[in-house]
């Protein structure tokens, strides 16, 4: 077990180096750079910059240096000082921009993830053990509908329902008057009033897919002889189902649980934009549109790191839960 953890950790290091370099290169790939976007924006506002000024700006930002040199400068600052550089667009440190929005993002994604798993696994198990029952059909229909409706559409529908039928103030995470107010019970209630829509939206599509997967995994396992052996030992149906086939059926989940980590960090971008949520997703979109390279690069780097770390966690969890992986 220790050896597996150690080798997996060692493998993560070169992966991270390659990933960080590739993410830096990718954000440089689109034609033009931040200065091009910036000049275009100024021009729309009626201001003009001379070519010399533009060139000076490029040199100022270090955009004329060779890419390897830029990469080295960027990554050393991150590693040594935790400094992700400066966002050109917001003229603020990247780390503080991300940090400001991270708390809410994590809160929202964690709650919806807990909801998704908490709903999907029991329902999937029930649906499989009562295959072709009324409940199973209802769940199946919910699964297909939930998976079929795009998240942004569901978000729009819920906003419309909340606004025109329930007379609620929807969109965002709280009403504008609470934006700068200190935390109070009224503010917390107001947040609760807003937060249900994103949670329902995120949990619905997540749970719908997960129920289908859990049901299919369980149906595979329930027919296997070891389940009959467990019944033949005298265990009750609940003891058999939860101690044996569920244990095995969860393994495919465990092997993908790590992917939840980057998803927690970025949140769902489209839903967040539609609902005007102050999470990290819309910030990333904005950074990419403006070619705000250090902000976008910082984002992608953190996302990729989370992916690598998440996969590492999955591997370790899987080895812990499945002896066939651990002992090969």
């Amino acid at each position: 077990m220790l050896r597996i953890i150690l080798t997996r950790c060692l493998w993560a290091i070169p992966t991270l180096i390659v990933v960080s370099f590739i993410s830096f290169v990718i954000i440089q790939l689109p034609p033009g750079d931040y200065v091009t976007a910036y000049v275009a924006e100024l021009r729309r506002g009626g201001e003009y910059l001379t070519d010399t000024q533009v060139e000076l700006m490029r040199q100022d930002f270090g955009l004329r240096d060779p890419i390897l040199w830029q990469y080295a400068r960027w990554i050393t600052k991150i590693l040594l000082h935790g400094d992700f550089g400066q966002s050109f667009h917001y003229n603020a440190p990247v780390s503080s921009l991300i940090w400001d929005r991270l708390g809410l993002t994590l809160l929202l994604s964690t709650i919806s993830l807990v909801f998704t798993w908490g709903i999907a696994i029991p329902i999937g198990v029930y649906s499989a053990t009562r295959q072709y029952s009324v409940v199973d059909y209802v769940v199946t229909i919910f699964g297909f509908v939930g998976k079929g409706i795009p998240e942004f559409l569901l978000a729009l529908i819920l906003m419309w329902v909340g606004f025109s039928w329930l007379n609620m103030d929807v969109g965002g995470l709280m009403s504008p008057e609470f934006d700068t107010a200190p935390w109070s019970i009224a503010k917390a209630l107001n947040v609760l009033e807003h937060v249900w829509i994103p949670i329902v939206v995120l949990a619905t599509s997540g749970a719908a897919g997960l129920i289908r997967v859990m049901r299919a995994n369980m149906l595979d396992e329930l027919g296997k002889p070891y389940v009959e052996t467990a019944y033949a030992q005298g265990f009750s149906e609940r003891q058999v189902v939860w101690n044996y086939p569920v244990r095995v059926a969860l393994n495919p989940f465990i092997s993908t649980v790590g992917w939840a980590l980057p998803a927690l960090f970025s949140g769902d971008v489209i839903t967040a934009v539609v609902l005007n949520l102050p999470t990290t997703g819309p910030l990333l979109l904005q950074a990419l549109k403006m070619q705000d390279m250090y902000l976008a690069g910082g984002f992608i780097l953190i996302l990729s790191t989370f992916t690598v770390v998440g996969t590492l966690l999955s591997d370790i969890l899987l080895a812990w839960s499945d002896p066939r992986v651990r002992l090969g």
Partner: protein
Amino acid sequence: MPPIPMANDMTNFPPERLLDLRDLAVTFATAEGPVRAVQGVSYHVNRGEVLGVVGESGSGKSVTVRAIMRLLARNATDTGTIRFAPDGEPLTLSGQPRDSKLMRSLRGNRIGMIFQEPMTALSPVHSIGTQIARTVLLHRGGSKSAARDRAAELLARVQLPNPGEMLDRYPHQLSGGMRQRAMIALALACDPALLIADEPTTALDVTTEAQILDLLRGLQKDLGMAIVFITHNFGVVADIADRVAVMYLGQVVETGSVDDIFYAPGHPYTKALLGSIPRLGAAKRHRLQTIQGMVPDPYHIPKGCPFHTRCDHVRPGLCDVTAPPVFSPRPGQEVRCHLTGGAA
């Protein structure tokens, strides 16, 4: 089906008897119509006795024991009487629902069961020791360490090397024969009065099969338990059974002691099966006998005697019309055939 005269009446349950089936019938509801997998099976097992149940695939031998265990599939319905007397008074198992308290207290405790597929019949994510200890804890309680000690003792009993080390092994680390030994240890966890072995050696190679049979014979002698041994292999039956029940298309066509079955078979099906076993040293130019035709499909079971479509001695107008009565050529042997009964 007309009433069939029985050798034993319904209330007769002698003290030496452990398990008694009367007129067990199992029907599966399928999309293509009902499948009558078992139709009127009666057999009994005495304490400390080994009953071999022989038959082709689809003869209903596995379904019968699942009815005893009350572990039939959800689309199955069954009628008939199943009585089991592990400690004194007989308990009526027939009619017990799958998840009943009585059945759960018997399974794994007074009735142990081993299965055909040692590769997949043990949980892949629990160690051998955990699986056995869980059964011990369920029925006997006590501490975890005591249950673990019991598991080690059982593993030693089934002659696995280094039982202490085996406790922490997982099924995928063991060979087929070792897994079947672990499976037997699991079935014996609480000293059952009855062990049901559903083709336990079919998936094993011949050498391992012989070792497992040896082991089962030894354990049976030491522990004094009764065994229902299901197989399609007459050679295995000769090796281990005291009495034999031959099944064909959901019916027991003949029962008797091993010697009677082998040396004085009464039913044409039994004779045909015995004739189709290859023998070393038999006359060289003889072709191996076969049984003509195929097993009829379970949706269209023939009228009268189910075997008449393949029987060499079929009497038209008799065998394909009325179900044969049970005839007893000698004490302890029962044959369900018109011809043996002297109807012709």
